[in-house]
């Protein structure tokens, strides 16, 4: 009976999958080199810490976000990137070339590599912002989702500009720490947080049969967040510590507010069934609340626990949330592409085996718990990274499984003469 979707604008299935597979490969690399480079680091300013953080943020998070946007933009906003195959190839290539130079530059302390990596990365981020904003403005709607998407790209433009400025500090031109802090704020509280909010507004009601987020939250929170970020930049440049502390508290409060609403909406969902993505979501939101609370505490009392906060926010908050989204988005995309090719036997629930998703997520939980012991027993980093290595391998295998499922079923495509 079901006679297919007619989304001609959708890019080929292989585009997002290539980004997702590469992202999981970076996780594997990260788990291998973490014990090698972090046994003797204690400050967030150490080059090794910066390199590893960027393998995670650019290697994993950025690949997932860019890959998803190429695919989800037509689904969510009914507008598609023009020349999507060509643009995806350009972005994928330059992102990886830039990232390689950038990471090697930090790990080997070779400055020209850092500079080259920075130029490639800044160029590709600005280019992605340009083509994305151009696409978003083609949308006939100006709903909350469109507004949030625009806000996240504005934050990304600022984050990239300040990141590149901070990099100049490594050549002695400016104060790296000052501009680095603004870069981190715009990246985390701006680009990543606002994009995660935007996608959550859509994904939670869509996949979990839950209520929608309040429209006030959807239409106001991103504005507040952007204003606070601009004030943060001003206060940081002026070195106004009091103002900075107040803004950090407000920024963190926005994050806590969103996390509490997410938990509340998920708790009230109509069909409360066991679901690995829901567990990951709760875990992510709990760690997000904890890390934001600790950030407020550290800002007020000037306690240097930023490595732990960073770990909690990135590895305990953002990572599981993305993992949860992937296990909803990948099966949906696989089904969607097969259906639009008139292959109707495909079932979303069979794209990735639940057992394997559970193994992967449980290994991640175990690895996260082991990492918590590292401040007390530094050698635990080896065991924690080893467990995460297997989790990352399983994530990679699960994505390959989805690709194989697609390849197997697409053979059944009916071609009409």
């Amino acid at each position: 009976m079901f006679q297919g979707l007619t989304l001609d604008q959708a890019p080929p299935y292989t585009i997002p999958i290539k980004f997702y597979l590469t992202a999981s490969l970076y996780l594997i690399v990260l788990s291998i080199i973490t014990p090698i480079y972090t046994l003797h680091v204690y400050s967030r300013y150490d080059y090794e810490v910066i390199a590893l953080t960027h393998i995670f943020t650019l290697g994993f998070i950025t690949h997932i976000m860019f890959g998803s946007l190429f695919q989800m933009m037509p689904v969510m906003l009914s507008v598609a990137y023009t020349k999507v195959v060509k643009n995806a190839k350009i972005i994928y290539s330059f992102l990886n070339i830039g990232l390689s130079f950038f990471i090697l530059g930090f790990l080997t302390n070779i400055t020209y590599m850092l500079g080259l990596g920075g130029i490639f990365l800044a160029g590709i981020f600005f280019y992605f912002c340009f083509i994305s904003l151009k696409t978003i403005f083609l949308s006939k709607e100006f709903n909350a989702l469109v507004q949030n998407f625009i806000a996240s790209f504005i934050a990304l433009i600022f984050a990239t500009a300040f990141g590149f400025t901070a990099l100049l500090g490594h050549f002695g031109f400016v104060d790296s720490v000052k501009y680095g802090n603004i870069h981190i704020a715009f990246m985390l509280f701006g680009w990543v947080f606002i994009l995660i909010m935007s996608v959550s507004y859509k994904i939670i009601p869509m996949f979990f049969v839950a209520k929608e987020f309040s429209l006030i939250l959807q239409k106001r929170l991103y504005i507040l967040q952007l204003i606070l970020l601009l004030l943060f930049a001003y206060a940081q440049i002026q070195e106004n510590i009091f103002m900075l502390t107040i803004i950090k508290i407000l920024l963190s409060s926005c994050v806590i507010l969103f996390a509490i609403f997410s938990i509340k909406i998920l708790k009230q969902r109509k069909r409360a069934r066991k679901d690995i993505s829901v567990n990951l979501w709760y875990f992510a939101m709990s760690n997000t609340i904890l890390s934001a609370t600790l950030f407020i505490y550290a800002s007020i009392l000037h306690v240097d626990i930023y490595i732990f906060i960073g770990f909690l926010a990135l590895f305990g908050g953002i990572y599981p949330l993305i993992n949860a989204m992937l296990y909803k988005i990948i099966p949906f995309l696989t089904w969607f592409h097969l259906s639009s090719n008139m292959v109707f036997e495909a079932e979303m629930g069979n794209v990735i085996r639940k057992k394997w998703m559970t193994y992967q997520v449980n290994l991640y939980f175990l690895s996260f718990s082991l990492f918590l012991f590292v401040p007390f027993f530094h050698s635990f980093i080896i065991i924690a990274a080893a467990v995460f290595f297997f989790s990352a391998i399983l994530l990679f295998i699960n994505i390959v499984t989805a690709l194989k499922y697609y390849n197997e079923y697409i053979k059944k495509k009916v071609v009409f003469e």
Partner: protein
Amino acid sequence: METKKEIILDVSELEAPYPLVEAINALNILKDNEILIFRHRMNPQMLYQNILALQLQFDITKEEENEFEMRIYK
């Protein structure tokens, strides 16, 4: 004016992708003298291309938080 027979399709308690599947199934068999009243908890962005492809008309009759209703007809 001819009164069209109303067919109510409520997918507000189904998780993705089933609301879309049910809606497309209903659109494909919609007759000239029928009107589909589609109820969901959110605006179904992906459905519009199918509506246009089948050259159907639609009116959104309710779009509030957690409530969406659309009338689709030939």
